């Protein structure tokens, strides 16, 4: 275990922020930037895709559905290779690993977010849309003012969950040499050579702490939302949504 502390002390900065300020940003900082930017840009795209998925217009429905199915059915690593190959061709310039990874995450996550938003919209009682239209709002207005605010609020836990997934997915940046956390760990391993277990254990633990904390946050938010939703529906104080443990019956 002393090894681990030594590694952290000597190479910690490399892991966490790369060679900054003496070089480009790297490690965990890049992972963080990639994930936040990725999910932030994927979000509006995801909402648009969700609306396209519930649209009665085939010109919207089919391309959106195709994109969602492709992203669900193809491994992320293949999507990375596609974007790596296609993006420079598309914009006529070489593209950095970081930008490639970012573009990939945006496209990939927008498909998953689209499904989450769609589920959120469809889980709202149809009465909501009816009521909104009945007072004279247009479809778009109803969406913006009534449906989406509620759907998105309900879906915050699921979206936090997707954020955690995005963080995990940034690790694939390694494959195209993006200087994120996994790549940084691999660099350290190449330097040390004799302590691979310790290095990769540290790597795993850093992801674990980061993702676990966010997952716990998502669960906390979910509990609060469930409580609020139940309270609004019945007006009474709701009980815990967790079912009683079956194990209690077994002596």
């Amino acid at each position, binding site marked *: 275990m002393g090894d681990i502390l030594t590694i952290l002390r000597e190479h910690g900065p490399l892991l966490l922020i790369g060679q900054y300020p003496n070089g480009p940003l790297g490690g965990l900082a890049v992972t963080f930037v990639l994930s936040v930017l990725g999910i932030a840009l994927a979000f509006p795209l995801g909402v648009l895709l969700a609306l396209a998925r519930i649209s009665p217009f085939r010109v919207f429905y089919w391309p959106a559905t195709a994109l969602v199915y*492709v992203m669900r059915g193809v*491994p992320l*690593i*293949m999507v990375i*290779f596609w974007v790596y190959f296609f993006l420079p061709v598309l914009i006529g310039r070489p593209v950095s690993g970081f930008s490639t990874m970012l573009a990939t995450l945006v496209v990939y996550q927008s498909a998953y977010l689209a499904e989450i938003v769609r589920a959120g919209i469809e889980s709202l009682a149809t009465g909501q849309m009816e009521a909104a239209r009945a007072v004279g709002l247009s479809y778009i207005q109803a969406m913006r003012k009534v449906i989406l605010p509620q759907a998105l609020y309900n879906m915050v836990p699921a979206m936090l969950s997707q954020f955690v997934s995005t963080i995990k997915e940034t690790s694939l940046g390694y494959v195209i040499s993006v200087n994120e956390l996994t790549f940084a760990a691999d660099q350290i391993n190449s330097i040390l050579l004799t302590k691979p277990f310790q290095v990769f254990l540290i790597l795993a633990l850093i992801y*674990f702490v980061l993702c676990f904390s966010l997952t716990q946050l998502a669960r906390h938010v979910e509990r609060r939302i469930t409580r609020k939703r139940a309270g609004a529906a019945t007006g009474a104080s709701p009980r815990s949504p967790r*079912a009683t443990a079956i194990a209690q*019956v*077994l002596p």
Partner: protein
Amino acid sequence: MSPLDFSVLLRGDYPGMIAKGLVTMLELTAIAWLLAMALGIVLALVRMTHSRVAQALVAAWVEYHQNVPMLVQIFLWYFGIATLLPMGTQQWVNRHGGEFIFATIAISLAMSAYVSEDLRGGIRAIPKSQIEAARALGFTYLQSFRLVVLPQALRIALPTLVNHTVLLFKGTALAMTIGVAELTYATREIESQSFKTVEVYLFTTAVYLGLSLLIMAGGSQIERRMRLPAR
């Protein structure tokens, strides 16, 4: 851009490489899936016991495997844990396709966490009274689980289990990073040798997409078959 020439896939070594890639991918998927399901069921069972220690251990297992990226888990096994094995074992493993073995282990352990959570959700959805009824008839804990709880839990958990099967299948592509010659690995090899990127990528994408859709459709079919008749 020159027109697409798919015949490149039939040239020279390429068909062989693709075939090997496909077989390896399918083997990896099948073995990892079976291990993940078996382990997931055991974990769900353990979690149902009264022992707080057991529950905490399973919870820790699940949290670890769900919060660490699969790629990192593969690396930890192949580059890290492998070096902790005694020398003789390491040599044996290397001679018998160590990359494949460790990739299988990493993927199946990771997915076992998801399976156990799916089953746990299914089990929680079953009314407590079902177990009471089974116990009142005189069934043991294990019998109650096997005959009454598990069949119903699997039914309820089926859609998420199918989703996670697709996830497992897609995860096999990550094995290429440690040199397992599955489909994505073969794709990159052929691309680097033939420069016919689009053709090869399209082929591989079609294979992954097709098989994923097949798994999802298969899941729907099973769901329909298992649906209980109602009034």
